[in-house]
């Protein structure tokens, strides 16, 4: 029989108990599979370790890693009273990812749409295909 230990102290989360001996179906808000891979994915401690590592890793300017974190633990994110240990990491990864993406998009779109009107002559300095032409990257690639 297996029980999950739940740490007290996460505000707002309910204490959950896991199923016993692997019978299918969910009891009382507990999640059976915390990852999007279902039975093939990681569980429990390993999942927590992963979620935590991905969360801290994303601070190295890696919003994509945060996104993968959210995708990976989507069942946790979807259910409000799921694993109270993993959920904060995933939730804040999602928030971080959205923030960084919005910032990046804002800059990118300003650059792409604004073009030379907004930036003036320095636009050519930044645009990738101009840089590529300048250094004749096609040659570099060959």
């Amino acid at each position: 029989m297996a029980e999950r230990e739940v740490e007290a102290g996460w505000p707002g989360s309910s204490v959950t108990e896991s199923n016993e001996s692997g019978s299918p179906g969910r009891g009382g808000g507990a999640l059976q599979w915390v990852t999007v891979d279902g039975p093939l994915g990681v569980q429990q401690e390993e999942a927590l370790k992963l979620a935590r590592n991905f969360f801290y890793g994303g601070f190295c300017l890696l919003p994509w890693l945060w996104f993968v974190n959210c995708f990976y633990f989507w069942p946790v994110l979807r259910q409000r009273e799921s694993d109270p240990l993993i959920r904060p990491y995933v939730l804040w990864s999602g928030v971080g990812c959205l923030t960084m993406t919005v910032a990046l998009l804002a800059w990118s779109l300003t650059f792409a749409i604004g073009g030379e009107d907004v930036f003036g002559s320095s636009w050519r300095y930044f645009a990738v295909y101009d840089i590529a032409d300048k250094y004749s990257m096609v040659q570099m690639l060959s």
Partner: protein
Amino acid sequence: MTEGNILESLGSEIVGIVTPVSICMLLVVLLVQSLTPHGSDVPVASIAMLVYDEQPTDSFTEKLGGAMLNALVFVIIVTVVTFLLVVLFYFRCTKFLRAYMGFSAFMVLAYMGGGVAVLLIQNYSIPIDAVSFLVMLYNFATVGVLAVFFSKMPIFVTQGYLVLIGVLVAYWFTMLPEWTTWVLLMAMALYDVVAVLLPGGPLNMLVELAIERDEDIPALIYEARPNARHIAPLPNSPHPVSISSSASDSAAQATQIPPRWRRRVVTAPPPGNASSAAAAATQLPSNVVNEPVNNQDTVRPIGISALRIESQPQPPGQAQALAPPHSTVVMDGLETSSRTAGRSEIINIEALLEDVAGNGESGVLSAAIKLGLGDFIFYSVLVGRAAMYDMTTVYACYLAIVAGLGSTLVLLTVWRRALPALPISITLGVIFYLLTRFLVDPFIVNLSTHYVYF
């Protein structure tokens, strides 16, 4: 299980492998069509061009001879590097191998991926700026390296990145001159047969070493999802009492053992003895015969493609007993050379180091078909080259390759040992390319232009 079940499960396993191969080929064809529709004007500098630089003006024999020299040099280099890998593996330099493979994967994703992206940006005049481009590339490459080598990630992400690595390397290979490419493909198919089937072949040795030691070879291997039909709910693992008992007394936990994806679990019965325990009825997967220990995700030094069917031990309570463990590894060698400096550096792309040791679980083996990334790459190179002529050759070659892959998979179940994935597909692909290009295409084109069929 009935015959129908075997066919069903075999069918879905095959689809699980043919789909990513097809996606890889499709992406390469798209890249080729948009970027270098008729072959590149400036062939890439690479190891495959050490000896002979093909010029469009050379004569037939010159081109053929030069191409064969190039291919020979390439195969020799691949062999040498594979032996080097065997030696390193033999001396257990796992950390070094793993680090090196991580580095080479990062180079592929960042450098080649960045290169292809820049080509696309130039081609389609996408007004992106350098800062966001660099940030995105950095994200892409870092998460890719993590996904393929160093960390557990969603299966979809890992598989996706493997396919992308295959696409990038294959696209790069299509930039070689034409004759060199075709001769190289055939040379690699021959090398594959020799390296895998002959007892002295490097890949054979590698596999045997891995089996002996019960370790995984660091390599790039694509593993399809195991068939989910026999997945039982997993008891929550903090108290894996039911799981950790050895397989020999696993009667009660039969239904509770979940298949793992890319995780090797040690079984109690050693590989050799399992066959004695096997009953007559050996089922094919979904309880695909899993190869205990080692060998599961191994393979691919330098891009060897491994095709494996792994068995899943059936709990004694059920009708089917353990099938003799076997692994069929289809291997193929692959090597990419870096573009910098001019051909001197060899990047080995490989790597899937499974974190095997100390899993603390036993009795569960994953059931999955694995195909090494080198196979993906060479299939895509063939189709990409065919795309440089016309789409008719693409269709013909695609069908030939898929037919070859299917027959290789069937042979896998018959022969139950490591098998090279390249030869049948590449041979069929080359034959059909030549037939289509020189017979079918002129025929069709002439018929259309002269309105014989309305």
